[in-house]
């Protein structure tokens, strides 16, 4: 069985959409992107690293934004390891491996959003290793005032857009960007419906299945992804699944390097219904609609980032109370506990975790923590830990 494949059941109304999502999610050779470029002669494909990149901007330029999440557990690392010390997380190794093995040759540019020092420096490595390809660092503002951070972010996006245009992308127009924003809003609204299904009936659509759908979105345009999400929703609504007496949990910390899907399934098999998570956070990073049909759509994109960006570890918490956003999600999803699930050596997640744990303690919300690498292959310990956690929450309402 392939690393991402699920047990298939021909009678499952979700099976066709699930199979489509799986094939897209495991497409490390980016065949889908190649096909898109063939269908759009002259158009560029723009890769981007986690967490968040302004996808509507790239779509408005006539390019295909492609989320790059590393090689997961499907890729043997042959050369990537030789570029990083043992104490660096795994995603830059496998991402570099993908590039050095020419799997990313189809990408005309790579964007490295500001998330941590490792991804930032990976951008510099890209510039040195692949000088013929455009590698841009996207500095997301940590000042959330429109007159300061907003102006800067608009300039950042304009700078990158101009460079992409010089390399063959369409010039940016307000009309195209407004259209791309509408498409993105549509996708976001549809994904929200999916989240709602997971919240109300998590057994109808498991987190491991939703994960594949989100991952598929990394290589699709907003319109194509929305269509797939709708098929998913239709299939999920037709299902007649069994309800399980599981514990409802929120998972946090996996916003960049992704856990192996087997790890997500392990959590599920351990008695946890994951009703909210930050896997591949980017597509859900903006938690409200972007203003549509404005005179200055770049500013609308910037405002959405400033005002509606998710409180995650790489984003400075200025006036809010640390942990409040997580507690709000726990309450909104009626979760009974939180599992911190961070990649080893992930500075943002691991530095954030003690503050979030303290906030949960104050709110009497049980939590546990585990670490992984994207190529982790042993899950017994995780199964036992998650199982003990879910049992404790079920029996006593706490992890104690």
């Amino acid at each position, binding site marked *: 069985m392939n690393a991402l494949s699920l047990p298939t059941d021909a009678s499952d109304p979700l099976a066709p959409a699930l199979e489509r999502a799986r094939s897209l999610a495991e497409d490390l050779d980016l065949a889908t992107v190649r096909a898109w470029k063939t269908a759009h002669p002259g158009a560029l494909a723009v890769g981007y690293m986690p967490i968040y990149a302004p996808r509507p901007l790239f779509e408005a330029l006539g390019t295909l934004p492609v989320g790059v999440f590393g090689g997961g557990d499907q890729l043997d690392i042959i050369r990537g390891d030789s570029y990083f010390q043992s104490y660096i997380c795994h995603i830059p190794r496998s991402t570099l491996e993908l590039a050095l093995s020419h799997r990313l040759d189809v990408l005309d540019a790579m964007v490295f959003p500001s998330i941590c020092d490792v991804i930032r420096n990976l951008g510099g490595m890209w510039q040195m290793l692949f000088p013929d390809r455009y590698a841009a660092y996207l500095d997301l503002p940590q000042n959330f005032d429109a007159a*300061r951070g907003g102006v800067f972010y608009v300039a*950042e996006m304009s700078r990158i857009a101009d460079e992409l245009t010089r390399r063959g992308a369409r010039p940016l127009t307000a009309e195209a960007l407004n259209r791309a924003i509408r498409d993105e809003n549509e996708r976001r609204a549809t994904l929200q419906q999916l989240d709602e299904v997971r919240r109300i009936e998590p057994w109808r659509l498991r987190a491991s299945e939703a994960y594949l759908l989100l991952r598929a979105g990394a290589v699709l345009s907003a319109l194509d992804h929305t269509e797939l999400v709708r098929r998913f929703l239709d299939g999920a609504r037709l299902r007649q699944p069994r309800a399980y007496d599981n514990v409802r949990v929120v998972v946090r910390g996996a916003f960049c390097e992704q856990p192996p899907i087997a790890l997500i399934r392990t959590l599920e098999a351990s008695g946890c219904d994951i009703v909210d998570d930050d896997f591949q956070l980017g597509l859900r990073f903006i938690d409200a609609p972007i203003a549509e049909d404005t005179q200055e759509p770049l500013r609308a994109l910037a405002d959405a980032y400033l005002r509606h960006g998710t409180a995650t570890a790489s984003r400075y918490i200025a006036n809010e109370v640390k942990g409040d956003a997580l507690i709000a999600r726990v309450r909104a999803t009626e979760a009974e506990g939180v599992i911190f699930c961070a990649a080893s050596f992930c500075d943002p997640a691991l530095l954030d975790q003690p503050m979030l744990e303290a906030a949960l303690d104050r709110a009497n919300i049980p939590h546990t923590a585990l670490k992984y690498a994207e190529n982790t292959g042993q899950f017994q310990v995780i199964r036992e830990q998650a199982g003990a956690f879910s049992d404790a929450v079920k029996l006593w309402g706490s992890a104690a």
Partner: protein
Amino acid sequence: MNIDITTVNSAPRADAEAAKDASQVRQKQMIADHYEQLSRAREDGRKVVYTFVPGNLTELIRSLGLLPVLPEINALQSGMRKLSGNYIAEAEKLGHSEDVCTYVKCDIGMMKSGNVGPTGMRIPEPDLLLLSYTGCFTFMKWFELLREEYKCPVVMLHVPYQGDGEITPAMRDYVVRQLRDVVVPALERVAGHALDMDDLARRLDLSRQAENDLVAVWEAARHRPSPIDGYFGGVYYIGPIFSAFRGTEDAVDYYRLLRTEVEHRIAQKLGPMTPDGPSSEERYRLVVEGPPNWTSFNDFWRMFSREGATVVSSTYTRVGGLYDTGFRHDSRNPFESLADYCLGCYTNLNLPMRTALLERYIREYQADGFLINSVKSCNSFSAGQLLMLRELERRTGVPGGFIESDLVDPRYFGKANIENRVQSYLQMLEARKNKVTA
């Protein structure tokens, strides 16, 4: 992130030398006075601002009559005083991951243990955390963590990274707007009075004077023998200007004195001071990338000095300000100048720029080799260093060495292992020299 600095108790001990250089004595007194002021800050009614070394705004802080505290320096001093291991253990017991920056954990452990500084006096709690987000993501998390502990206000200065190899007008404008509209008002609120722009301009002029002399000290290493060690000795030279003293008369006097001493050493054809006294022979000239280890600092230094290896230039000594590429603070454009300072710190340069700077140092200082000390704690420095190593060897033909340690976690300083590597590397340089001579 990392940073350096001089300590009161562990200035480079010249065991073989009875008298310290006058500049050393001067610096020691400056630092002792500063910690004394900090210890009396509450009774004297003075306010305290915690901030970071790269992108520090000491002139602004001083102009408002505030006292700066630099937690990185507290952490490295704890390392040199052999206290960091226990502080880190304390933080890990509290739930901080073994994977993350040990400066952060050392600082938190020190705070939980009473916040006693290097002179044995308690460091006051902050009235404000000035979060200068320059070149290191961890800074942001560090002050988020401290805010949870101290329950004090934080003001953020987001300094964009030179990811694409330049300072754009938008980047400079963004920093200037934050300085004017956010940082200065926050500092003024703490100080209780308005910023005196004339005093700020005066301090920026003082900064420029000290920077001129510091650059002269760095460039003295072009001589043979080099009169300075630009890494192990260099971390002492940057003490005043990277910490609480930039923009003060004290700093101007210190760097003038240091420059005079270095010029004297050039005239006398003397090598640098080492932990064992004056260097007797310059056998190898090295450039070093990366921060030093602080827990075994003198042991680490001796691995080089006893083999006649002098570090003629280093990048770590540029993290709090990169002056030898031309930047100087400018009183005519105070905020723009402060912005350019922050934007230009070494760790705010992208990997191609860092590599180019190292290449320049290797060539200009006629280095026989270059060494990378890769520290586990600091991804800002470490991620990408193996590529830098390959690229520098390719460009210069000069062989590179690579060792791994940590800033202040003694568990990651394997003395025998590191010594073996250093010796093997220096033997390789020796063999290479002999081959060239033959």
